[in-house]
């Protein structure tokens, strides 16, 4: 049985690596955007030990997307909430 949440987490961590962010720097960016989870929890989200709330998931997604913008790319990480509408 494939847990859709697991897939989402794997994708998040591969985006993090693609964006060239350490886990610490991603946490700092997530924190800047109002994220309330600790660095440990964020690592657990990335490794799949914990599932983030939809809100947390979107904050992480946006932290990654802003990093991709800095690198001149689009926003490749999809949000759970429809923000683009």
């Amino acid at each position, binding site marked *: 049985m494939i847990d859709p949440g697991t897939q989402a987490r794997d994708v998040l961590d591969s985006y993090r690596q693609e964006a060239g962010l350490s886990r610490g720097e991603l946490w700092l960016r997530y924190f800047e*955007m109002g994220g309330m989870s600790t660095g440990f*929890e964020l690592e657990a989200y990335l490794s799949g*030990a914990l599932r983030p709330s939809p809100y947390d998931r979107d904050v992480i997604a*946006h932290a990654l997307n802003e990093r991709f913008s800095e690198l001149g790319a689009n926003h490749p990480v999809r949000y759970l909430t429809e923000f683009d509408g």
Partner: protein
Amino acid sequence: MRTAVAGSCIPQVPRTRFSPSSESTVVVSSGAVSTSEHEVQSRAFEQSMNPPFGAVTSFEGPNAHISLRGRVDDVAALELAAALDAAIDREPTSMVLELSELVFMGAAGLVVIANAERRLATTGVALTIQSPSTLVNHLLGMMEEARVERALPGSGHLGPEQLDGVDVVSQRFGSSMSTRDLRRVAGMPTDPDVVDGALGLVVELALSSIGDADGVSVSLMRHGVLSTVAASDQTIMAMDADQYATSEGPCVDASVKGHWFHAESLDTETRWPAFTPRARALGIKAILSSPLRAFDQPVGALNIYSRTASTFEIKDQQAAATFAEKASVILSDAHIDVGDRQMATRFQEALRSREVLSLAKGIMMERQGIDEEAAFGSLLRHSLRQGTTLRARAESVLLSVRRSERELEGDAP
């Protein structure tokens, strides 16, 4: 849910593995040899904090399995060599080296493994290495590059001390370990000791692979001051210290300015008047300093010293840059964040961003009667539509408040 996090973060207690079907088991471990299972367990906590080296060999038929744990420093490398030799003497048809519980692997350990691999290869047996950490991967990768860079070991050393590791590492360059096969990654947290050990290996590798290098060091910004974390000998340590003391020199400049500095000949060098005479007094003629970076910030330098002027050629500069890059990757991976002062600035900035965002959310919650998550959603929606950052959007919300306040003041009598 939090239990799951804690569980995943607690360091695993090293386990002694006994295969039930094994014909025999040999345990090699530093310190007293423990014979009872109970003793092993009672030491488990202490070991989990700072695990000593241990090698457990088990045979299943002709297949050898060797599991390593703890730190493989120079002394432990000898024990490792004994364990590998003993296993190879039994003429296995396959050999697996398990590294998942390894905390640190120094240059000597890598060489011992390479030698064992060579010995096994003569009998047509391949050595399989399982779960090398990211760090070990970097080191093996570096050794591979160093070998490509120069087939022969480098020249002499400057100070009285010689690192034993250098010579064995140099021998290693002639062999044919296929380090590309070892690039399977198992993420591993690293502590400062491990990082220092890794940087020590960078020093050894640079020293033995860069022609005419008589000394190498790594300087790193820690607690807001530069200090030498790895050096090939005491003379080099002193050389770095002279630069810190005079606040000048190629090492200081590379660490602070983030680009490389090359003093081709100290006899004609004019950039560092206070430092240069000290270096010349110690017989140094040329210095090449390449910056180390973590998170796009300069955090230190890899310094290469020579007694021969104008000796560093383009290819040496390129090799130095490659080693500096590798060291930077190790630093970044290890979460050795930028120096305290820079980190403090970064944190301040992060706090400010968070504050701006939180104020903007509060304003929107008040104005629109929505909750925090909805306010975040609204900010995010606007920033995506306008192609600005979340912080920029939050700032414009704050500006709009100030504007309307001014209007209110203007209306007031």
